[in-house]
Each structure stands twice: as C-alpha cells, then as structure tokens.
C-alpha cells in the first residue's frame, strides 16, 4: 500500500512538472509587476536604514552647553574646568565668558546696535563640552548632564542635539510609514499573483475539468499553479534585489559627493546577501499565498 502511495506521488510529480513546463506558467509580466511592487518597500527600507545610520554618525558630534549662574566666582569656574578635563567621557571643553559670548553674538547677528544699548550683559557664562565618541553617545551625554546638574554653580545643562532628536523622531515615523507601506504592498503583491494565477486557471479550465473527471484530487490539480506562484515570487525577489542594488550603485557617486561636501565619509548600507535572502523568502511566500488564494475553489 505504501509502495502504491509512492508510485502515485511519483506519477503525480511527473505529470505536474510536465504541466508546468508546457503551460509556461511563469508569467513574465506578473514577475515584473511583482518586482516593481517589491522594489518600492525595499528602497524605502534602504532609505530608512541609511538615514538611521547617518543620524548615529551625526550623534558623534554631540555637544553639551553648561550655563553657569550669573554670580559665579572665577575660582569655581576653574575648579569645574579642571574637573571636566579629568572626566573620561569629555574630549574637549572650553569656557566662554559672558563678554566673549556677547561679542560672538554681536558678530553673528547684526544686532550690535541693540546689544550696545543694553544696560548690562544679559548672557551667562557658558562651558562648551565636546564628548568623546562612544557606542552610546546620547546615554553618555545624559549621564554627564545629570552629574553636572548637581553642581550649585550650574544653572542648566543643555544637550545641543535637539535637531538630531527631531531627526530621530522623524525617522521613527518614517519606519512606521515604511512598515505600513510594506504591509500594503505585500497585500498588493498577493493580489497581483493571485490575479494572474486566476487567469491561468481560467485558461486551463478544460484541462482541470478532465483531471477532475478522472478523479484527480485537489493537490494534484493545484500543485502546478502553487509551484508557479512560488517561482513567480522567488524570481521577482531576485529581480528586486538586483534592481535595488543597481539603484544604489547608480546613487553611490552622488552620496560620496554629498559626504565630501560635509567633510565626512559615509558608507551606504546596501542590500547584502542576507537581506536578499530574506527578500526572496518573503517574495516566494507571497507568491505561494497568492496562488493558494487563487486556487482555493479548485479540486
């Protein structure tokens, strides 16, 4: 009995392979449509990943501004400076006196005439601190901020990375958006595959009717279509990988130029082997699901 089952499986596989090759089910248009559909979220993911990396790189230039109370004695300031120089997380620190601050402000802002009418200097003394580069810089900045806040001569400690925080929150919005986009386009991809498999099923209705007539079961009838769905998905996944990487290679000179302008170097995150593999798996699964959906009423 077991032998008969194997025999049957073998026969079915032979006919199935034969049917796939003769139907030429791997529909090129479907593959291309699916590739276009998948390229969009893949590119979106890539942009997000690169912005993410860039923002981390920019975090490395984090500075802290320490605002001193207005009646602070010079000796206290020097003590604090000495303390900061000893601190391991501090790369550089320098003191900007209220007078220097006023001068700088006057230079930068064309407000000289207004500033000169002020009865006394409203600016506090400021210590600008540059942190050493570490893995978790924002953490280090926060730690330093809390430890300094306890000092009675310090009014406030400000981390000068508000805009980076804004970028970060923008990025998290972007991540959510790309997730939603991904989900929508995955549904779109399933619909594309299921629609084209449905057309194929329609085209081969007569054959399916014959198979049903002689007692073929549901799996036998559906297998070539399910396998086609899988292949459409896998091929589209590979094509998407190629398309996205081609776009990256095309963009690379621009990114390098841009990075040179900002006097930084930036290594673009690319779509590597691992990402490609995941893409193919997702895409293959998507094609199979599309075929399952399309052929659910058959057999």
């Amino acid at each position, binding site marked *: 009995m077991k032998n*008969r089952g194997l*025999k049957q499986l073998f*026969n079915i596989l032979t006919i199935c392979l034969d049917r796939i090759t003769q139907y030429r089910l791997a529909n090129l248009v479907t593959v291309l449509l699916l590739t276009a559909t998948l390229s969009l979220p893949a590119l979106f993911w890539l942009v997000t990943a690169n912005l993410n990396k860039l923002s981390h790189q920019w975090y490395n230039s984090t500075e802290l501004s320490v605002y001193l109370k207005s009646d602070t004695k010079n000796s206290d300031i020097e003590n604090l400076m000495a303390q900061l120089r000893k601190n391991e997380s501090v790369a550089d620190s320098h003191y900007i006196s209220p007078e220097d601050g006023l001068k700088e402000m006057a230079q930068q802002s064309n407000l000289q005439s207004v500033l000169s009418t002020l009865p006394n200097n409203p600016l506090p003394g400021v210590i600008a601190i540059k942190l050493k580069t570490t893995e978790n810089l924002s953490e280090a900045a926060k730690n330093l901020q809390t430890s300094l806040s306890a000092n009675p001569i310090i009014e406030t400690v400000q981390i000068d990375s508000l805009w980076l925080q804004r970028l970060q929150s923008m990025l998290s919005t972007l991540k959510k958006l790309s997730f939603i986009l991904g989900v929508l386009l995955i549904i779109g991809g399933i619909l594309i595959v299921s629609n084209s498999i449905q057309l194929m099923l329609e085209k081969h209705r007569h054959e399916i*009717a014959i198979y*049903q007539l*002689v*007692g073929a*079961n549901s799996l036998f009838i559906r297998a070539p279509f399910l396998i086609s769905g899988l292949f459409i998905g896998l091929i589209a996944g590979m094509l998407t990988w190629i398309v996205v990487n081609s776009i990256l290679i095309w963009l690379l000179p621009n990114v390098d130029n841009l990075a040179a302008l900002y006097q930084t170097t930036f290594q673009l995150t690319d779509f590597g082997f691992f990402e490609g593999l995941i893409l193919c798996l997702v895409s293959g699964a998507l094609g199979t699901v599309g075929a399952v959906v399309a052929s659910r009423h058959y*057999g």
Partner: protein
Amino acid sequence: MIRFEHVTKEYANGHIALKQVSFELKDGEMAFLTGHSGAGKSTLLKIIALLEDCTVGKVWLGHHAIANIHRHTKPLLRRRMGVILQSPMLFLEQTAYQNVALPLLINGAPTKEIPRRVRAALDKVGLLNKERVLCSNLSLGEQQRTNIARAVVNRPTILLADEPTGNLDPDLANEIIQLFTEFNRIGTNVLIATHNLSLIDESQYRVLHLNQGRLVSN
C-alpha cells in the same frame, strides 16, 4: 446502488432541469436514460458523477448521501466511476494511449500493469491500432471511443455514459453497448443516456424516461 429521492435541480440562471425525480438503481443493475433534448439527462448523470449538486432532495451513492460527501472524498469516489460526458473530454495534444493511461496514473496503478491495461481498454473499443495517434488527429467517433476506453480502464463500479454512441455507426454503437453489458455482467452499475431508441428497443434493460425534467416512465 444509486438512489434519487425527490431530486430537483435548479441551475444558477433559474432554469429547473430536474423536477422531483425519484428512482433506484440496484447494485449491478444496468439502465438506459432517454428523453428529448433538454429533458435533463446530462444533468442527472452529472449529479451522480458529483459534478453538479442537486437543489432539493437526496441522492445516495451506496451508503453515501451526496450532499454530505466531503470535497476531498469526491475524487476518491470518482476514481471508482467511469464517466463519459457528452462532449469529449480529452487532451487533444496527447495520444490516445496517454489519455487512456491518465486514470491509472492518477490512481497509482503499478507501472508494469499500465501498458497492458491501456491496450486492453483500447482493444475493447477497436482502437489498438491508433494508440500512438494524437487525439486531435482522431475522428469524432474515434475520440468518443477513446473517451469510453478511458472510462473503463480503471474497472469502475459505476459506469455513466452520456450519448456514448452519438457519433458512431450502428454496428460500432452495438459493439459499445455490448461492451457495457459485459461490464454489467461482472457487477458494474451502468447508466446510459441516449436518444438512440433502436439501441434500447433491442435490449431487455430497464429504461428511465425523462420529459422536461420529470421522470415519466420507469
């Protein structure tokens, strides 16, 4: 055993093809189904072949009530039937041999047995010399006989034939009916739908007569 209990069939477009049809075909019985065109003969056969559902009433295949048969069981039951539909259901781009071998392949028959059984079936319908010919190159009558060979190759327990002799000359038609009676002799249920009254007149078998969807004589 095939039993119809007050079966009514209404197609999706509202046409009622069978009205309150009741009859029983005992195990091993053979019968003819007649009636003018549009009377519902094909519809009745398709219901037995599990290709159409009935709208009202009950149909029994042995101890199975058709309405309760799970869709995964239907293929298994179909493998025990030989079904000849009115329009040839063949793969035209395949040879007669390949077409007849299909039920055996799907049913997982031993490879060694397949050629012998396919040739035996083709021989019974007089097509042994055409086994390598593509079905698209066969005459209509030959296609019909290929269809019949495929229906009997798996030694079915129920044989359903819809106008099996439509394109055959009287001699061949008689031979085919002879073939069906041979199957009936070894216990196969046979139901043949036909217009060909001369076939029926010559036989002693039971006749079910449909008129506009109603069973008028049994």
